[in-house]
């Protein structure tokens, strides 16, 4: 998909882009499903073993709402500053699909008298150092369908396998207004949303498929296209970029964009037409007669409010205040709960917030990005990270080799001690040893030596070559000093 990213600017089109998102968040911290007592830790388990008559939709069974799911949804609603109506309703969304045990989904609805668990609300993001408010339409609870597995691609598979372990898992659907103006804003919004949800302790977004997204995108004045099947937040920007280019090309070619639903193919990195407006489902929503409306008292809301943990924005302010780090860094560190936790756990072991922050910002995050993983997907622990920093303080390794040690820690999952021992990163402080390297370099680069005699600035080049030869383990101060002495001696001789 690298090509699509590059071509993003191919059309210097000033047309306004309108993006709205529908995010499905599994409330993974719930112990049981939304309407039955089945356990929720189904990932990696034998298919169709985390099921009961209720989530299989067997004839005669009835749903019973998991009260904890309501608690969680109210908490998210409060964090996103939604209005929490005092009465909320479940609706049935009817359509036929083999992943739906009942061929209808118990969901919520905000038309025809339906009231979801949260109305309105907003999320603030920072883009180009400017604060921007993204408004929400609603948040609502619904049940996750089962999972379909194909043999290869959806079009060529001979059969479809269905696993209902996921059926009935609690989903919170969060719908935004079309307030996002670029794929990048969409990504920043999702990052912020995920951080908020993880700070609340209602979901772990790193679990596969636990946060999914549908997107509506259009160029102002053009038709809206819905992109479905974006199964990770990472793919959102890619999918939107692809779609934006497609629509801009069509516009440039004078082709009208068709109002339709498109399917994101993550492997091929393209969107494929799924159905046009005329083929849209009529979901025949109606109030779920098997459930009674849920009365949410002000006391209930206040109780949840009093239990709310610290949110990312507050944590960011605290980081700036207590740790004296720049606002930008504090923003990056709180963009993910796991990262913020990592940072603070390091501070507990090594009370130098700025040093830790700098190392995270400049090195750790870059390596994680290269590997396309998140901090909690790597094996590096705060203990290991802090130990590495302490080895710099004690002079066991140089700052320069520390960077390499960290890279190996992340890539190979080894503790710093092991890497230092195996790869000889131990700092060389012995003048005699370093002098041998300096002599070698002087022989290898006679022109640079001549330059250095004329101007001290060239000493840096020579010292750099020593560092390279010693893979960064030579003490830079001693190295510089030895080179300088030798150059000074040559100057004297020349005079």
């Amino acid at each position: 998909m690298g090509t699509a990213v590059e071509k993003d600017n191919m059309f210097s089109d000033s047309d306004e882009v309108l993006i709205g998102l529908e995010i499905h968040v599994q409330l993974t911290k719930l112990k049981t499903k939304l309407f039955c007592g089945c356990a929720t830790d189904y990932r990696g388990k034998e298919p169709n073993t985390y099921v009961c008559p209720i989530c299989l939709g067997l004839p005669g069974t009835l749903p019973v709402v998991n009260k904890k799911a309501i608690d969680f949804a109210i908490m998210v609603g409060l964090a996103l500053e939604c209005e929490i109506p005092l009465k909320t309703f479940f609706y049935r969304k009817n359509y036929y699909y083999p992943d739906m045990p009942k061929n209808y989904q118990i969901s919520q609805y905000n038309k025809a008298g339906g009231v979801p668990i949260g109305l309105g609300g907003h999320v603030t993001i920072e883009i180009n150092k400017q604060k921007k408010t993204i408004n929400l339409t609603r948040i609502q609870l619904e049940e996750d369908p089962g999972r379909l597995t194909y043999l290869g691609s959806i079009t060529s598979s001979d059969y479809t396998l269905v696993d209902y372990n996921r059926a009935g898992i609690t989903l919170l659907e969060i719908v935004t207004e079309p307030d996002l103006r670029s794929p990048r804003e969409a990504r920043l919004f999702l990052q912020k949303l995920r951080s908020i949800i993880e700070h609340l302790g209602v979901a772990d977004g790193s679990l596969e498929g636990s946060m999914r997204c549908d997107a509506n995108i259009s160029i102002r004045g053009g038709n809206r296209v819905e992109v479905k099947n974006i199964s990770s937040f990472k793919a959102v920007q890619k999918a939107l970029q692809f779609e934006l280019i497609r629509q801009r090309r069509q516009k440039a070619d004078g082709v009208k964009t068709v109002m339709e639903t498109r399917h994101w193919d993550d492997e091929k990195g393209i969107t494929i037409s799924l159905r046009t407006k005329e083929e849209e489902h009529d979901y025949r929503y109606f109030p779920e007669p098997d459930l009674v409306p849920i009365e949410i008292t002000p006391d209930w809301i206040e109780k949840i409010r009093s239990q709310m943990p610290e949110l990312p924005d507050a944590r960011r302010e605290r980081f700036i205040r207590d740790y004296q780090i720049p606002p930008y860094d504090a923003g990056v560190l709180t963009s993910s709960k796991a990262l913020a936790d990592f940072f603070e756990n390091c501070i507990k072991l090594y009370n130098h917030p700025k040093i830790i922050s700098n190392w995270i910002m400049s090195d750790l995050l870059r390596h994680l990005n290269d590997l396309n993983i998140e901090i909690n997907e790597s094996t590096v622990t705060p203990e290991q990270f802090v130990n590495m920093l302490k080895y710099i303080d004690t002079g066991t390794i140089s700052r320069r080799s520390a960077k390499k040690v960290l890279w190996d820690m992340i890539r190979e999952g080894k503790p710093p001690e092991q890497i230092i021992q195996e790869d000889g990163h131990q700092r060389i402080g012995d003048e005699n040893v370093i002098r041998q390297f300096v002599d070698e370099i002087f022989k290898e680069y006679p022109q640079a030596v001549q330059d250095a005699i004329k101007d001290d600035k060239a000493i840096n080049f020579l010292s750099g070559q020593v560092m390279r030869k010693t893979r960064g383990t030579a003490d830079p101060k001693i190295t510089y000093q030895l080179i300088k002495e030798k150059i000074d001696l040559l100057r004297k001789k020349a005079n």
Partner: protein
Amino acid sequence: MASFYELTAYELHSMLQNGDITAEELIYSLFDRIQKTETKIKAYITLLKENAINQARLLDKKLRNSNFFGILAGIPIAIKDNICTKNIRTTCSSKMLDNYVPPYNATVIERILAEGGIIIGKTNMDEFAMGTTTESSYYQITHNPWSLEHVPGGSSGGSAAAVAADETILALGSDTGGSIRCPASFCNMTGIKVSYGSISRYGLISYACSLEQIGPLTKDVRDCALLLNVLVGRDPYDSTTLNRPKIDFLATLDEDIKGLRIGIPKEFMGTGTAEAVSKAVWNAVHLLESFGVTYDEISIPLIDYAVPCYYIIAMSEASSNLARYDGIRYGYRVEKDEGEWNEIFAEDRLAFGPEVRRRIMLGTYALSAGYYDMYYLKALKVRTLLRNQFEAQFKSYDIILGPTMPTTPFKIGEMISDPLAMYRTDIDTVAANVTGLPAISIPCGFSDGLPIGLQLIGNSLQEELLLRVAYKFQQETDYHKKKPPIGG
């Protein structure tokens, strides 16, 4: 002395307790009876003779060796085949569920078993409880024990016919639009639909969830009260059940009914009501009057709209409730390995009979974009207004009275080809479902040897009052004691 199978649960309860009879003897007596009459009646889809005998033996042992004596200890009970019974086939009288064996018991079944009741079989019904005659069953036509050419009513026709023919002591039915009361009326039985939310629906295979309740079909009011003692109560598995305090419905049966006020809506006695029916109802009113009850003729105008309101709501809910029958996880599956799943769904769903298909299609239509407001939403509004009109009357009257069915039983085949005519015969029963109010049907006379039912509708949660009035009526009449002329 009468044969065991002719007795009521209440009578048998003390006999079993006193050791005058064993549960095993009672079961054998019933299965002898079933053997003689069932070929004519065809009330059952599944008979559980061996199961029942084993259970009776275990129970006899338990009764001898412990202090256990449940309300239903040793009492045989027949279950309508839309109520799930663990490891026992539950078909809804549909080809769709011909091979369906539930892995769990409905809450009412758990309650019955906990009280020592013995399930002897699953009874015939209209397919998915959609009908007034039990003729839409995939399996068989059940015959009215009072006249074999007539229908037993529906949709709980098998349950009512089984009790009427003495092929069980008690039976469970379900009532979505009159499906307990109609067959009670047609088979000369006592049947009650309780206030919505009083009995758990968990395990009742849904037709229209917001309208239906499970309930008893019994030989008299006392058995009805006895069974309600077991069935009524909050169920954590059904969110729509109410938190009613524990009630002993038997305890208050004897209380006086003097001074009660009855309202008789003229809409229940309209032109469609057979003369013999209206005569029998008026006789009943005058008898009640003699017990110190007063009455007025009143009007509840929206009753005229109860039938369309009921059918729109019922069909809409049904179209969604029955969507799960696609043959993928259980139930009927076409012999076909290839094709798009929509094709396979569509072919599987041909296993539904014509009445079920009709209701699914009409319900789908009523919920569709552009029609929802016109039909479904309007029906919900009518529902609220109708309930308001009933509530207004309950300020002046304790009970609303009328016939259960406008006529005596239809002949087999008379109605099946004219669904609209059949729907219209629900005029007297559906209002109680639409409003969620309790209603009981008791025998009040005969015309040409065919039974007539009297319906009493009470205010919400007033089952005790309904039972008390009905009990007093049965104390002073013997319609309910008459046995059908089927011999055996």
